């Protein structure tokens, strides 16, 4: 029982990380049809930015740590907005070229970060409470899992509120539904494009700081590893659906942990089998509306 609870919470924590990447991927794909291969780099860059803050002013107290999170998120958002403005916009509507250019960007940016910070992991620490454990029904659960889950839920609620109650959110939702119609009504969707990239980059950057707490280190390659599972989460959840991505992230994270423990380390394989099953039975994903 204790093990099961520990696995469930850890799985949800991992799912939270997947969601922080997948939410941006899903929104960007839903609105613009762009597969963003550089999204892992946004996360890594956010993680490094947070690490630099922690190294300069420390991250032992909560205000310092929250500052690290804000800076990490801002770094991710800045990187993402620049990517949209400089690389994606010139190739407007040419989806394969756009995907290719993000491939080039991910190669170059990972190599650049390797050049700046080195290829080896850099160990980071946060507030002391994160490395302690909380007991729930006898299971001793590391506190950073709760931080991850809390962070992902906060981002999900924030994003949903933004989409629901602001004018830009309205344009984004309408654009995901039917982009040509929105353009035909004379609304400039290009601002919305930059905005979704910024939001996605923000979530990924925050994810970077949180991921470095979960793994205990930052390295130039953490983004790439998480990105592959975020892709799977995005497809299972349905492209363009935030809530779908959240549900799929929780399922994938928990399933992976359970299979790794009870079925002899087959977690990654189970996830891919789940993906194949979803594709065959419901190609649009859990909450996706239309196939692209």
């Amino acid at each position, binding site marked *: 029982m204790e093990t099961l609870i520990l696995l469930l919470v850890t799985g949800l924590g991992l799912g939270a990380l997947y969601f922080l990447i997948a939410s941006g991927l899903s929104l960007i*794909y839903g609105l613009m*049809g*762009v*597969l963003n291969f550089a999204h892992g780099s946004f996360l890594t860059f956010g993680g490094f930015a947070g690490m630099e803050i922690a190294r300069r002013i420390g991250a032992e107290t909560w205000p310092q740590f929250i500052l690290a999170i804000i800076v990490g998120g801002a770094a991710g958002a800045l990187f993402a907005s620049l990517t949209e403005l400089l*690389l994606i916009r*010139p*190739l407007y509507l040419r*989806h*394969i*070229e756009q*995907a*290719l*250019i993000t*491939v*080039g*960007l*991910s*190669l*170059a*940016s*990972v*190599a*650049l970060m*390797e*050049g*700046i910070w080195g290829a080896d992991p850099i160990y980071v620490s946060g507030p002391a409470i994160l490395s302690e454990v909380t007991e729930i029904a006898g299971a001793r659960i590391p506190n950073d899992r709760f931080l991850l889950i809390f962070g992902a839920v906060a981002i999900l609620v924030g994003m949903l509120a933004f989409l629901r109650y602001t004018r830009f959110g309205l344009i984004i939702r309408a654009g995901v539904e039917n982009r040509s119609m929105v353009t035909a009504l004379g609304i400039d969707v290009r601002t919305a494009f930059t905005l979704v990239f910024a939001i996605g980059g923000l979530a990924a950057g925050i994810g970077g700081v949180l991921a470095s707490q979960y793994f205990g280190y930052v390295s130039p390659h953490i983004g*790439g590893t998480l990105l*592959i599972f975020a*892709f*799977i989460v*995005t*497809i299972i959840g349905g*492209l363009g659906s935030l809530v779908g991505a959240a549900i799929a992230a929780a399922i994938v994270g928990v399933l992976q942990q359970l299979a790794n423990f009870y079925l002899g*380390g087959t977690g*990654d*394989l189970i*996830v*891919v*089998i789940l*993906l*194949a099953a979803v*594709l*065959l039975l419901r*190609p649009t994903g859990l909450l996706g509306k239309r*196939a*692209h």
Partner: protein
Amino acid sequence: MERILSFIKRPSTLVSIGLIAVMALLPVLNISIPGILPGPTWSPGSLQLLALAMLIGSMALSYHLLLGVAGLLSFGHALYLAMGSYGLGILLRETNLQLLPAMVIVFAIALLAAFLLGFVSLQVTGIAFAMVTLAFAQAGSVLIRRNSQFTNGEEGLPLNIANVPDFLVGVFNTRNLYWVALIVMVLCFLAAAWVERSRAGHVVAAIRENELRVRVLGIKPLQPKLIAVTAAGVMAAVVGMVYLVLQSGTSPENISADLTLTILVIIVLGGVGSRWGAMIGGMVYVLLEQRLTAFARSPEIKELPEFLAIPLSEPLFILGTIFILVVLFLPGGFAGLGRRIVSGRKAKLKELS
């Protein structure tokens, strides 16, 4: 007969045959190209490098069928290379099969796997297809890393030479492997051309341009796409088998997403849709990669101010940046650039006359 004769008499065919003859003769010639080849063309080191270049060229040709012909962006093509190399490696290690029968079995397995995986992944199109293929390759990578009693895990699987014919083993026989690689590349080129010019090839090209229109004509897109995907997978598996013998082993790096990305970079740099661009791009890439690494480590780079030295000492940064620039400013890749220069000259000649 007449068709064959006219095919042979075409200048492009004659040039190709001439090129193949020159390539075939390299191991018995003594030409040194300092800066590109490590030694004279007859030396095993040079032949090994050239053979590897030809295998990557063949790999690029197989990917050309996916992206160039069918317009399918796959991020998991390395899976089939690994299937060929690991499949053959495991069969040669665990069973008493001779090289050829083992290759036939792996060929059949790869054919079946490419067909089944292609069937599942083609349920989605476009960008989702890219993500699904990536996920399958990832699963393959996990399988290889986890089952180390068969695959030797991270250390890589060495080739068991007990049942490999003698003329393919040892440094002195590198030239034989070179010729095998040359044959594989020529066969891959012909196979790619054949698929491209077949009925299925024409239909997938039409689907690439406008899928809706093809559907309206009453043609189901799945079958021709599946043919292209299966052919590409099998070609990659064949390349993988020869790779295993040439490199005396294989490693998990050969199934990583990085390898697929490398092939993708080659195709885009060479020019999407160009067979020659893919093949030559693959060969040039292998030769260039060595130079790029040497360039990145050279003392001149180290002496530059830090903000220049850090990016320039990362080969992947240089490659990624070139890639971005080509996608932005040179849509047809280098093949397209060549074509534009040639057609521009022709137009000028016309103007003059």
